[in-house]
């Protein structure tokens, strides 16, 4: 059986595939921008992030987010995701829309705390939503003084 000759030289194929990937990335960016502007306009956008500062006293398993007493997000973590949080990643857990005015966010963290015990804690915050996007970060910290994990809510300005 004779080997069939390729349609494109290897170098040409490589260049064309790389160019295509670059164009697909640009297209994805523009599509994601459109999606965000269409679905989550800046005036009403609210995004909730989860991060971990050290996190040795808490092994995160899941998070539940309530906005104005309505469950908007629940997430069960994979070991890879937990590792990414440990390394400094910040997870955008939820993005949605809220009217201008006062709102409340409640977050419940489930996992294993000190001494491998089941651990569930909640944290809450009231915040105002104006005409700018609102970014809220839920941060899991270690309290060395209390030897307990702490859960903070930070509203980015």
């Amino acid at each position: 059986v004779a080997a069939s000759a390729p349609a494109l030289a290897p170098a040409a194929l490589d260049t064309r595939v790389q160019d295509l990937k670059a164009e697909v990335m640009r297209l994805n960016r523009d599509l994601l921008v459109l999606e965000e502007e269409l679905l989550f306009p800046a005036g009403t956008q609210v995004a909730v992030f989860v991060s971990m500062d050290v996190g040795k006293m808490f092994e995160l398993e899941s998070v539940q987010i309530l906005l104005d007493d309505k469950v908007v997000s629940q997430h069960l973590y994979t070991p890879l995701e937990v590792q990414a949080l440990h390394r400094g990643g910040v997870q955008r857990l939820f993005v949605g829309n809220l009217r201008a005015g006062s709102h409340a966010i409640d977050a419940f963290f489930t996992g294993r705390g000190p001494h491998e015990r089941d651990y569930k804690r909640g944290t809450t915050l009231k915040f105002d939503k104006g005409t700018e996007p609102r970014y809220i970060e839920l941060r899991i910290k270690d309290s060395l003084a209390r030897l307990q994990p702490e859960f903070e809510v930070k509203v980015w300005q």
Partner: protein
Amino acid sequence: VKALLPTLCATTLALCAAASAPARADGSAPHTVNAPHYGDTLFHFFQDRYFSGITGLMVSQHFGRVAPHDDEAEVLRGGMLLSFGMHPQATEVFERLIEHKAAPAVQDRAWFFLARIRHQRGLLAQAQDALARIAAPLTGSLEEDRQLLLAQVLMDQQDFAGAATVLDSFKGMKGSTDASQFARFNLGVAWVKTGQAERGIALLEAVGQAPAANEVQRSLRDRANVALGFVALQGKKPLEARAALQRVRLASTQANKALLGFGWAATELNDPQLAIAPWAELVRRPVQDAAVLEAHIALPYAMSEIGAYSRALVGYEHAVTVFEQERSALQGAMSAIHSGALVQSLLAHNPGEAGLGAQARIEELPELPYAAQLAPLLAGHEFQENTRHLRDLQFVAANLAQWQASLGSFEDMLANRRAAFEQRLPAVRQASGAVDLPALQQRRDTLAAEWLAAETSQDPAAFADSRELTLQARLTRAQAALKSTLKAALETAPAAAPQTEDTSPDASDNADRLRRVQGALLWQQAQQLPARAWRVKKALRDTDQALANARERDAALLQAQQEEPARHARFAARIGALQARLQALLPQVALLDTAARQQLQHIAVTELQGQQERLDVYAAQARLAMAQIQDRSQVAQRATPARPTGNGARP
């Protein structure tokens, strides 16, 4: 020279890019993320989800929300582009960082990545120049990578002494990293190949006898010992060759070569008997390996060398049979490749959904009828690259298909919004028209003028509340009633004694009471005047604010009425333009997919044809050896005089 280092560098590229990002769980210095969206990119990056990481980052950069990590984010983006093999795009990112005079540490990292790209593209002098521009030691493992890259660049420019000097800097380090061991191995092989065998052997000996901390280092140690063995064989030093080859693990991927060389070393020692054991072991192994193929004719050769001609003949015959079977299997494998079975199975086994560049190397083939014959393909760089292209194209096709569906949803959503807007607009217009804002403003202005007049004249009655107004009304009525009573009394009383307030004690008393009440009321109002004037002033201010808000809402409503259709039209135009771009990409993807499949098939078939040619050569050698043995046997028979027997001569 086995180009091991570049391969290793490619796989560790992601780790190099990670040096720009925080890492705390591993004990390194804490690093604060001051922009949650930059942290989100890191979250994807740390899970090797580079495509979503890079596109998410590009979106955040579009909205300007990664500050103050702009430069760090660009380094990260460049690193991820590099990991996708997108060299021109990555180069653009790093060059821009340098041109824009980013922070010195960022510029240093950019120069490092530029050096890596230039090295991978074979621009050695430019790569060395980029490395020379790094002003300060890089952070974390990047500094070691920089030194290793410099050593590799020098080696590729035949500057082995320079590379050795660079690599010597690793000697003081506690333990050896995989990369530094690879670099030493490469340098040792390079030295041997360029005639400086003594220095090369010394380096390979060091690698071949170094303690190994992991499988990568154990495998490299095996390679070094195999290299040493064959160098010694070429130098006619069979004892040294056997000593080195004996150190190779029998279960190692290098074991076949080691066993083959071990046998050849025995024949060099003029002791072919010693070669039989390793070669007999080798011929029991899968025949797709080149060393095993060679062993199939080497083993009967050893037999013939020790005078076991009949066993040698059987061995050669067996080898020819094996070669023919393998040749036939290769033919079948080529037919399977032409039918597309290889590509289909590869894609099914390694789906592209995981993202661009995911699972960069294919380590094992799926179950195929001729998987054993195809297995050697995995070692080929070209095969791996084309498989990666194909998987990337599959991913791109799936990504575009997903967006195509989403764009359809966006169009529907926009149509619904437009319909809802048009449906609600009349009611909203009616509601907004029901409030007469100019009339309200006029009323406010009138009240403000009254307030100003009252405050200027300090008229306490102007600020009377409803209770006081009621009282004032009652008082006025009482005063009128009193006057009316007196008037009636005057008309009916005798002229000699007219009744007046002054003369009538009751009337006088009532009038006094009314005056006192009036005085008290005025006094109370005078007391309240400043507070009441202030309250009115505040109420007017509140009214002004409320009217301003109402005007703003009215204007916004008016603007929305005018602009919303235009906004909808802009969204529709964007969706249309993106749809067109997407549609234009689809045929390109299909075309490249076909080309990549053909390319992959071509590489595979070419490789298998090479294997067939090797088999043909070995088969010819085996047949020649068989003929020689038969000739030798016939010559020996002719030379031996017939011994007389009772039954006549034996054949």
